[in-house]
């Protein structure tokens, strides 16, 4: 077996063939599923902890502070210490709460974000499942989290939580449209919904360059709507600590709260990863047609480094938004979506279709 950090497909093929050699195909698939599950779980935990740490440091940078700096060098173990603390915190039982739904809600939220990770291509050949409707799948899965948020608000038996959940419902249902249409605009350009093919199509130029103006508009809309969909930044109405204390997760404590917290960060990662894949070429290095020497240098940087760099670039952008802007009001939030983003988006989709039909795209 030859192992290369530039192409994981031979590595995964080797695992597959050696498993199939020692057991029946059904068992081999089952073992592979478990391996993938464990790998995603570990990745999930590491990225979640890293994002929490990154958010603290970025927010400290914006706010003229140092951020965590006591536990470990530069405070890197602070989030781990917090996680340990959260594990030991008492799970406060809520009187008159709907027990089943109350306990179910954090799992729905976290499972939704967990499932989305499976379809994200981290590097060449490093993708759990390459669906031919990848973009569609991601959109469908990422909107499932709202069910957990609604359940949390409803089952908590807390008035603030209910308002937060209702806001979240209205918000996600609205902004789901913009996310979808922005991605559809790019699908029109790519001509496919399969994520591996979308990335392959960006070998000679990322879509944000290829698609000219419509792609840039789609990216801006996607970032706005994506921030709204993750309940973050200027759109954190569902939590709105100065209005609703903590919104839908007011009543949650300990590890259940940690689930909501982690899911929020992972959703941000997923939104950024989709943006990186669809607009910035995913793991595809930056190539310029004809510059062979330059392309070779770019190819030298491993694909997963490209992917993570792009993703965290978008994540940084979202954090920047969050720590700069004040929060919108609920009616302004809906006005922004239905009166501005949606018409622009539909027009943008037509523009992109026109561009592709006439072959004006690059």
């Amino acid at each position, binding site marked *: 077996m030859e192992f290369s950090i530039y192409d994981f497909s031979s590595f995964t093929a080797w695992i597959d063939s050696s498993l199939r050699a020692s057991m029946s195909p059904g068992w081999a698939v089952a073992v592979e599923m478990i391996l993938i599950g464990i790998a995603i779980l570990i990745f999930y935990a590491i990225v979640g902890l890293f994002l929490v740490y990154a958010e603290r440091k970025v927010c400290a940078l914006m*706010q*003229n502070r140092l951020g965590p700096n006591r536990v470990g060098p530069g405070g890197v173990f602070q989030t781990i210490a917090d996680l340990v603390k959260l594990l030991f915190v008492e799970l406060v039982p809520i009187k008159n709460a709907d027990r089943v739904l109350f306990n179910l809600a954090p799992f729905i939220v976290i499972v939704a974000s967990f499932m989305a990770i499976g379809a994200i291509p981290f590097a060449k050949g490093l993708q759990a499942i390459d669906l031919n409707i990848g973009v569609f799948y991601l959109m469908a899965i990422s909107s499932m989290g709202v069910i957990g948020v609604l359940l949390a608000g409803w089952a908590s038996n807390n008035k603030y939580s209910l308002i937060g959940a209702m806001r979240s419902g209205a918000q996600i249902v609205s902004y789901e449209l913009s996310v979808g249409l922005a991605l559809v605009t790019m699908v029109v350009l790519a001509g496919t919904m399969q994520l591996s093919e979308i990335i392959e199509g960006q070998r000679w130029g990322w879509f944000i360059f290829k698609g000219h103006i419509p792609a840039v508009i789609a990216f801006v809309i996607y970032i706005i709507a994506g921030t709204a969909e993750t309940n973050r930044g200027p759109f954190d*109405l569902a939590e709105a600590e*100065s209005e609703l204390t903590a919104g839908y997760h007011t009543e949650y404590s300990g590890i259940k709260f940690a689930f909501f917290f982690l899911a929020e960060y992972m959703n941000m990662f997923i939104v950024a990863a989709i943006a990186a894949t669809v607009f910035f070429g995913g793991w595809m290095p930056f190539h310029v047609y004809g510059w062979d020497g330059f392309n070779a240098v770019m190819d030298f940087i491993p694909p997963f480094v490209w992917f993570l760099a792009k993703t965290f670039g978008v994540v940084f952008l979202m954090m920047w938004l969050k720590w*700069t*802007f*004040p929060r*919108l009001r*609920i009616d*302004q939030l809906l006005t922004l979506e239905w009166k501005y983003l949606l018409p622009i988006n539909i027009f943008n989709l037509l523009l992109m279709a026109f561009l592709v039909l006439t072959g004006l795209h690059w």
Partner: protein
Amino acid sequence: MEEEVKAPVPEQEEYVINMGPQHPSTHGVLRLVVSLRGEIVRNVEPHIGYIHRGIEKMCESIAYPQIIHLTDRMDYLSAHINNEAVCLTVEKALGIEVSDRVKVIRTILSELTRIQSHQLFWATFGMDLGGLTCFFYGLRDREMVLDIFEETCGGRMIVSYNCPGGLMNDIHPNFQKRTKEFIKYFRETLPEYDRLLTGNVIFQERLKNIGTVTREQAIAWGLTGPVGRASGFSCDVRKHNPYSAYDRVTFNEILYNEGDSFHRYKVRMDEMWESMNIIEQLIDNIPEGSYAEKMKPVIKLPEGEYFQSVETARGELGVYIVSDGNKNPYRVKFRSPNFVHLAPLNLMSKGAKIADLVAINGSLDLIIPDIDR
């Protein structure tokens, strides 16, 4: 027969939530019983008294110089101005004229107090609206003012620097230097506040035409300070009834006619510039003289009623003392601006959204201990 007061029964389809006493946006222990219909506020009923300490009653059993230390705890962000109000009333009753040095120092410190109070307002107001970054910027700059207080007064927030007849002690040798440094620094930093918050589209849209009070309503409800002046009610005590050294400085009274939350915010932002102007006019010419007049060990006010009002960072604070000739006052009444400003909250926020209620509450800049006293 006392009639039992019953709380109004909410209408059907109204959703009643208790905002407070512990709530992040009520800035203390204010409790607002809010009736909602969806997101829309139908009725707001403030419940106060969670931090009632009986300051007015306590004043009746202590001597005049001791009252000063209680007034710090009313509007703790205008502590120095509250102290000054009591001192001015006592001095007025005794017919004492304090030296120019005292007057000038009191004025400078009052304006520094106003600046740090508005800085904290800016910081917390941004936080109420969801922009957490302002909080750290505001507190960073406020620290410089508090350091000046610490050097001269000994206290940072609860200063208790005044006493009837003058000041507790003379200013620190560094006072002038550090104040000038601060003014120079803050003149460069204040535009940063505007860049971060004032010009922001979301911020302006959140506040414009929210919680509007007309000039007539402002006068009828007795709204003073930045809240009254945003509605076009010229009510600056420093201008209309100058005390201390305000008659020898030139400054503008900030007036806007819109009366909405955004202009209440604007008044405070502009007032910081004016306060810096006032300090700059005075800081280089602090006259020589004694820092306190010689007073009798036991101060007894002649029988009668005395009143003096001052302009705190939030509005007009009136101190009303009734004396029966003893060493304790017979009755003390504080006309605190925050209590008055809380009253029209229902009027302002009816029909607004929950988020607007928070914005209006923030723009009134309420200090709860000053409401309850």
